């Protein structure tokens, strides 16, 4: 089966830094090989239309990573992300898709190791559940 790409929308204040840390470690490089990272100014900028467009254009999944709850650089941006991801998942249900191809999680800039766990878990879910 062809490698299925995953788009990661990463808050530049937390997840993007964690991604750069993880990517700079040689052992981690292969684990991140299927990820297309996109730096956002805040996870709250992950708009519904953007997420759906990414899937429409062929990405197998969208992973949104924001700052830890109650520790958002923009105070409530990650709560905004939570609502927007909820709306994107609702649209996917309407379209007859598995809503879990969109996932949201929260990590700090020091959580490079957690980022690898989250990415690995999401990749396994995509491979096991979503159809090409």
């Amino acid at each position: 089966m062809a490698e299925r790409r995953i788009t990661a929308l990463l808050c530049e204040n937390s997840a993007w830094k964690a991604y750069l840390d993880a990517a700079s470690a040689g052992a981690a490089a292969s684990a991140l090989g299927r990820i297309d990272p996109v730096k956002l100014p805040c996870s709250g900028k992950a708009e519904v239309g953007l997420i759906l467009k990414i899937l429409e254009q062929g990405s197998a999944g969208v992973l949104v990573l924001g700052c830890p709850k109650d520790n958002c650089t923009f105070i409530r941006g990650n709560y905004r992300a939570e609502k927007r991801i909820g709306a994107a998942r609702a649209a996917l249900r309407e379209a007859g898709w598995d809503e879990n191809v969109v996932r949201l999680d929260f990590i700090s800039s020091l959580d490079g190791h957690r980022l690898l766990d989250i990415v690995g878990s999401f990749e396994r879910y995509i491979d096991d559940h979503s159809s090409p």
Partner: protein
Amino acid sequence: MITAVRKPFDEIAALLAGRRKVLILGCGTCVTVCMAGGEKEVAILASTLRLAGKKQGWSLEIDEATIERQCDREFFDAVREKVAAADAVLSMACGVGVQFLGEVFPETQVLPGLDTKFYGATVSQGVWAERCSGCGSCVVGEFGGVCPVTRCSKSLLNGPCGGSQKGKCEVDPENIDCGWQLIYDRMKALGILDKLAAITPVKDWSTGRHGGPGKIVKEDAVL
């Protein structure tokens, strides 16, 4: 503004069933502000339909565009080619825009993508509430700036009724304020409560919906 909400997805899908090419046309004014039918909402609906098409094997081609207003003829010029190329146009405007689209393009099938709700204001982020019923003969000047026609569920001009309890309306005590409580509180705060002693005569409802479809002619603007 005129407020609206998007129709349920299944209803839209049923409207589009059997069509080959559809243009989803947004409106850049009221329904953009109330986040129901602007450019972003058009894109979300178009993507959702395309994703559904992929999953369910539809052969529906979807184009998308948004114009400034669908209630003014000149703004349609920008989308004439797109309209001509489509089997049908799903309008994401209010009911005015949907119908006017059909008048501008009489050969085109027009379909509504929204359910139009009311004339409302943005009371907080993401929340809109009704403030005007378009009765054609404004009376808020006699009621402290609060409209009894709209804010009272029964449009009473000599209220309140017996269904007013603790400032709430019996129609929906959790969500609807008693319009007459609002009128009383406002007039009291303004020091004009004495005006409420006057009995308001029967209103002439023919200036609004009860007089049939309305029309305004402003002679100095007519060419």
